[in-house]
């Protein structure tokens, strides 16, 4: 247990040092990762701790973003608040909208709750383009970060530290919240609502409160986004935004404290790197999500915590003799799969098909190699890599299961 504060300190040090460690393009990605991480944490307060699956968190993120842009543009661009304090505007609007939306949606639970949050977000998204004064129409609203407190806020480094400060503060607050009675009650909301009610708690008020806090931190994330890109656009209210935060959180693991943040940071980084490399990165993202949901149901971080926390019975720890071939199998299968998808993508592209229709099957240059789409070998190699890798994983799993059976 002594390890934890040390690890946290180390992580903060690394985060503080990032502007010196990475290129300016990566620094930009780091800002996005921080914002995505905060948004995922806010979402998971509701979804992971209180067990209420929301499909409409884009609304609170977006409202926070727009509030901040308006605050930046207030008084002829002088700003309602000094630049470093502007996120408060987003958080405030997030909180207010969260109270209203939470009051209505937490009257129902489960699928119905999810559908109400979805409907509210969709309504806002449909309404936004009509209200040009508030949401700026299709082109959005633009703003400008004014210098304050001796900082110019013109460079990415300044924006990075500003974002980092707010994100760390918010995550710290979320952690403290988890330790308070309110945080414990949120867990109760997830585990057994009826019992909470029986104990005399006002479940509806409690749900509304948790919802509002979650919306407030979402608004804060939206505000940081606005500060970063100096604009807000109603595209930020799209369903897509709600689903991305959901995917990110679950890939990380919603029930471990930093899981969603790590998941969101990883996936944002993944998107940043792969979207310039391959056109089908969304396919990879989808595949990763499905695989994580099926085989690591607690999320990547959740599963790691589970494996290393020593909660398992003796003899159930990590066995290198099993883990290594398993990882090797996954790597081989992944390589085969990626090569296969990338080949398919190139062969199926419009331009290539136009050529192929003319009877030519020109070779494809990919990963520094030339591939002949006409030859069966081109397809057999990645396919057999995929099959081999999967067979290896399945074989190891079967042996592990047999061994467990034998010891039981």
């Amino acid at each position, binding site marked *: 247990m002594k390890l934890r504060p040390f690890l946290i300190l180390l992580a903060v040090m690394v985060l503080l040092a990032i502007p010196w460690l990475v*290129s*300016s*393009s990566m620094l*930009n*990605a780091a800002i*996005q990762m921080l914002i995505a991480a905060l948004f995922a944490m806010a979402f998971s307060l509701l979804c992971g701790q209180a067990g209420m699956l929301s499909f409409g968190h884009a609304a609170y993120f977006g409202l926070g973003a727009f509030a901040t842009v308006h605050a930046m543009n207030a008084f002829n661009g002088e700003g309602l608040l000094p630049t470093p304090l502007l996120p408060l505007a987003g958080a405030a609007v997030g909180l207010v909208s969260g109270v209203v939306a939470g009051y209505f949606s937490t009257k129902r639970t489960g699928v119905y709750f999810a559908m109400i949050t979805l409907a509210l977000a969709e309504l806002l998204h*449909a309404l936004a*383009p*009509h209200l040009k004064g508030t949401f700026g*129409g*299709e*082109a*959005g609203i*633009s703003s*400008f970060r004014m210098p304050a407190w001796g900082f110019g806020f*013109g460079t*990415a480094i300044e924006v990075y530290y500003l974002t980092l400060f707010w994100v760390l503060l918010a995550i710290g607050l979320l952690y403290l919240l988890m330790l308070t009675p309110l945080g414990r009650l949120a867990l109760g909301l997830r585990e057994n609502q009826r019992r909470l009610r029986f104990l005399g708690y006002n479940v509806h008020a409690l749900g509304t409160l948790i919802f509002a806090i979650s919306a407030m931190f979402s608004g804060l994330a939206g505000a940081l*986004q606005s500060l*970063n*890109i*100096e*604009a807000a*656009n109603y*595209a*930020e209210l*799209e369903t*897509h935004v709600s689903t991305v935060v959901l995917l990110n959180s679950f890939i990380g693991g919603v029930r471990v404290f930093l899981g969603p943040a790590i998941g969101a940071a990883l996936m944002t980084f993944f*998107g*940043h790197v792969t*979207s*310039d490399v391959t*056109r*089908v*990165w*969304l396919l990879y993202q989808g595949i990763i999500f499905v695989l994580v949901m099926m085989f690591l149901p607690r999320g990547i971080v959740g599963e790691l915590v589970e494996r290393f926390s020593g909660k398992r019975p003796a003899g159930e720890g990590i066995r290198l003799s099993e883990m290594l071939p398993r990882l090797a199998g996954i790597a081989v299968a992944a390589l085969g799969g990626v090569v296969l998808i990338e080949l398919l993508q190139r062969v199926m592209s*419009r*331009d*290539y098909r*136009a*050529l192929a229709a003319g009877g030519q099957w020109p*070779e494809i*240059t990919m990963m*520094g*190699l*030339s*591939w*002949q789409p006409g030859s069966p*070998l081109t397809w057999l*190699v990645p396919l057999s890599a995929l099959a081999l890798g999967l067979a290896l994983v399945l074989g190891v799993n079967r042996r592990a299961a047999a061994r467990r059976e034998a010891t039981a």
Partner: protein
Amino acid sequence: MTFPTRALASAACILALSAGGAAAAEPLKIALVETLSGPQASTGLLYRAAVQYQVGKINEAGGYNGAPVVLEEYDNQGGPVGATDRVRAAIADGAHIIVQGSSSAVAGQITEDVRKHNLRNQGNEILYINLGAEAMELTGEKCHFYHFRVSPNAAIRVGTLVAGMKEAGVLGERVYAMNQNYSWGVDVQEATKAAAATAGYEVVEETLHEVNKIQDFAPYVARIQATNADTVITGNWSNDLLLLMKAASGAGLKARFGTAFLDQPGNIANAGAIAEGHFVSTPFNPEAGGEKSKAFAEDYKKVTGHYPSYVEPATVFGLTLLGQALQQVPAAEDIDVTAIALALEKATIETPIGSFSMRAEDHQGVFPMVVQQVSADATFKVDDTSYGFKPVKVFSAEESAAPVQESCSMQRPS
């Protein structure tokens, strides 16, 4: 295991060869910040093909500053947020010129990002060439010195469209304006009303509907039918256009459609005979302009695998204009983007269908437009169907141009 290990693409060889002789001056970097993945990727990939084609041509002619022009591609992931991110990445990678076209929302974001960057980094400016975002405000209230648009806008599209249809004798006197409810659709609706007096028609009704959300256009078609309109002018694109035209054909609607984006790849394949006889106004048609146009179309097909269509010709012409401007800017140790912008204002090129220049007042390109009709007689068939676009009338650059918007007040570099 017999992979031939000829790893280098021939294109890379050409680049390397042409770069060989020159001294190590700073190469000009162009960043394409487009939507290359996700639901709206189809158009982004077309821009990419056209930009690759024309940058290749510039480099074949010797590049700029003694080095080939470098083209970097960035995926803006379809939204303004991703676009900002990628514009910054591009600037960090040393880009001098940003090019982008699909989505006016993204364009609005990029043009503001570029403006702010230039405010904060004087002497290190970057240029934004807008290849196809057609919202009026980009050359109106949002116009600034480092933004150039090389595609038409709503006023140009609608102005030429109604004039061409009137000359063909199919416009009639009752026009219905059916558009998507966002800035582009509203622009088209306003332009349709503005052109009514000169083209001699009456706008019988105007409808704005939600963007990309409507599955069933039959109720809208019933409304068109009720007004007894002769022509429907619509700025709709993609699914909203296809579904509208299919519903109209199913209802036996006699009105003719005048569109801005009927030539998007896949539309004719999907609509088939339904599209026949309807109109579109675009900056190019391989049949207009004689042999030169055909030669351009064939060369384009040789390089990219398909004929230039939809947003591609304007992109190619716009970058040709850039190439022309670059020739007027002397080579230097550091690339002077402001000098390139000033040269771009004065540049003029001859495209296969007429002269193409840049208007200095609002940085809107001035170029000819071709009003065309979907017909089985067209020489160049599209989408593997028996239909193509047959030119009806070519409007010269002067005839096509729409007046400078009053809302544009541009601050020129001192």
